[in-house]
């Protein structure tokens, strides 16, 4: 059920990406005996067995750079997909974002091994920009999830949100629950849904607050009627309604912060690609051509 929603799918994409990154790193460290190479001091690393293979211009190390570069181009394609109208029918936003996240996590892993853990010169600016982009991507993902969306990942309109909250309210009222539990649900929503302007800090604390209060509501329901299994659906509906109302109340703040995030995220992407293009150009000019030797 979680994977079918946009937020659940993104969570799965992150988990899958991290597992893939860990698998690739493990293979390089163990399968290619990379640990022995990367753990050797750079002053003498050039004379180890793995140097010809794993050095940045090596047969495999160079491919790491190519793979990383290509994978880092995919997020750019995601941005282009968002901007170009003719491409909007080309795959759902949810799928694009999942691929964006996957390549945005696995690609830097390849790039990191391409560097052979030597970070110096102008290209290191590109590398650390990439790291900053990846880390900020996690924040962006969180903010993205705070904006209510459809299954295809499109933002819901205010009408959609109102209709959904009223539907949930009707389901709750139709449920045969006691008066005391209804009061407890009302009190739960009052504690979770903010009133008035929402600060940036409370935006990041919201999900945790909601989880904690939902647990408290579940405990209260058990204390009131003593049959928790009966109330699972009621608690789930109440929680979704409270979550929706909270995100609606925070929507303005969320969007504003998301814009600010773009301002930080995108320039780093430009800086990174500008330097990488220069790096690639210089290395090709010097004769370091991948797949050629």
């Amino acid at each position: 059920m979680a994977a079918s929603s946009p937020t659940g799918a993104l969570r799965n994409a992150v988990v899958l990406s991290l597992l893939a990154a860990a698998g690739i790193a493990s293979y390089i460290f163990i399968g290619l005996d990379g640990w022995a190479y990367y753990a050797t001091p750079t002053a003498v690393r050039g004379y180890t067995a793995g140097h010809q293979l794993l050095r940045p211009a090596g047969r495999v190390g160079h491919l790491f750079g190519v793979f990383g570069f290509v994978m880092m181009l995919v997020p750019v394609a995601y941005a282009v997909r968002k901007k170009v109208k003719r491409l909007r029918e080309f795959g759902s936003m949810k799928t694009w974002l999942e691929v964006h996240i996957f390549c945005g996590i696995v690609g830097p892993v390849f790039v990191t091994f391409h560097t052979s853990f030597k970070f110096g010169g102008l290209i290191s600016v590109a590398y650390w920009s990439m790291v900053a982009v990846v880390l900020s991507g996690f924040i962006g993902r969180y903010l993205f999830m705070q904006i209510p969306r459809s299954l295809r990942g499109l933002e819901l309109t205010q009408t959609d949100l109102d209709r959904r909250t009223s539907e949930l309210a009707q389901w709750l009222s139709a449920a045969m629950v006691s008066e005391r539990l209804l009061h407890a649900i009302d009190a739960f929503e009052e504690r979770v849904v903010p009133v008035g302007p929402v600060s940036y800090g409370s935006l990041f604390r919201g999900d945790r607050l909601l989880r904690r209060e939902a647990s408290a509501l579940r405990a209260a329901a058990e204390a009131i009627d003593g049959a928790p299994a009966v109330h699972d659906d009621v608690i789930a509906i109440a929680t979704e309604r409270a979550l929706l109302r909270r995100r609606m109340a925070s929507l303005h703040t969320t969007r504003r912060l998301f814009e600010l995030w773009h301002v930080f995220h995108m320039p780093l992407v430009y800086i990174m690609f500008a330097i990488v293009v220069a790096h690639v150009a210089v290395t090709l000019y010097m004769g370091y051509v991948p797949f050629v030797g």
Partner: protein
Amino acid sequence: MCRSSAERLALCLLLLLCGASAAAAGQLGALLSPGPLSKAHRSLEGAKCAQCHEAGRKVSATRCLTCHTPVAERIAARKGVHRQVTECVSCHVEHAGVDGDLRHLDTARFNHATEAGYALDGTHARLARQCASCHTGRSYLDARPACATCHADPHKGALGATCTACHSTAAAFRDARTHFDHATARFPLTGAHQRTTCEQCHKGGVFRGVAFASCTACHTEPHEGRFSASCTSCHTTATWRTQTVQHAKTAFPLKGAHVQVACAKCHAGTAMTAPVRYGSCAACHVNVHRESITGDCATCHTETSFRNGTFDHATQARFPLEGKHTALACVKCHTTVSADNTVPLARRTADFSGARTECASCHADVDPHKGAFGRACDACHRTATFAAKDFRHPQAPDFFAGEHRAVTCEKCHVPDRALQPARAALPSFACGTCHTDPHLGQLSQTCETCHRVDAGKFAAAAFSHARTQLPLTGRHETTGCEKCHPRETRAFPSRTGTAVRYRPTEATCVTCHTDPHLGQVDQRCETCHTATSFKVGAAYRHTDLDDFFQGFHGRYTCRDCHKPERRHYPAGDGLAVRFNVGRACASCHPQF
């Protein structure tokens, strides 16, 4: 906010401006560099990439060799490590930091002999991984394969520059003595001189001008000039103690054990010039026989060994050593000879006086006869074995055959027993002289009536029951004796004791057999029984009931009517086959 395209464009322009500024400042090379150069190439840091890198060709060896001309020369000459090199970066890795190792050498695999043309063998082998021990300069090419490159000359040039004439890498530099061939010098070392340390002759490290024409140049003359000036007439270089003196040419040629004797044993004093009285053995040897033997030592001893002399005991002592005497040690008889092994053989007392040829001289204290048979032991004993096994009683040889043969002398000849006679009173051949009567007087004293000495354990092989009142027949022949003659403890004719009872024994059945019929019939057992079988004979017939056993009753056996019954019988109560069963039909047929 930075969302507008104009702002993004401005940002990119700013970035390009930064790059252009850096390039203008000549730092673009440093910015694009994958890492700092090593100390050796520090001067190339910055925008001098083209010094080493060539567009499209990575790092060009040509450009490296532009600066590294000595290496270029050796490559051109195809010499040394670089003789087949076509590119540099596979061995010399740059951009590995300021401390990057440009001359990394795998000492474990580097073959110094092949690559450098100078084998690190012998004591140099341990330096194979310590390059800096010899290569102290910036370049490996600075070192030259000359000893003086690393070693100081302790001879200060006195022995020339060719160190290898005396030294080799097979041994430590200071151990040249073990490898220097002194035979190439004017004084070849032989014998003990080969074991002498160099310093003993070459004092103060002087190797040239050492006097060697005379032995006394190094050795002190111990003979105070009494012998010839030529030491080699007696001594050789084999060993200082080795003597090549031709003793055979002297009045006392050395033979046998004398050859092994050290000179100083006879020639006292270090100078060996004191006169030796070689005419008498006693001049050197102590007469261990004291006054017992004072003649010529050579009569018994030879120079081969004091121990194994040529002494003939038979002729010279008039007592041939035969039999068991052959293997005896001298001290067994000649008790005055010292057996103390801690004293040297030549110093041990060997006084042979006091020993006589008669047996008692040695065997006096072990005479088992206490002198009863006199002193002529050889009348019975021989030297082959002191046991008188071959002794035969001169009287009654038949008597001493059989079981008597294995009887030891002491069984009969016991001096302390009155019955056993000494030589003056010969023992009687009567059995009772030695044997006690096991029958306690039941039988006569003529034992030989039944017993024989040639039967095992004096068995009564001559006895025959047929001579008694009851000749044994039938089952009695296989009946064990003890069945009728049991071992009893009772009063016998000679005394009360335990013995097999033979008499009185009546020749009646009840003497041995108990009455199983408990007095129902009289004691004339033979009326029904025979010695062949104690069972009632098959031919027995009821004498007074012949008619009764005709017909039907004739098919029945005795036990069909005479069954064992426990009841009162004439001899008492008990279980027995009832004979008197009555003649009424109801006696056997209760239904009647």
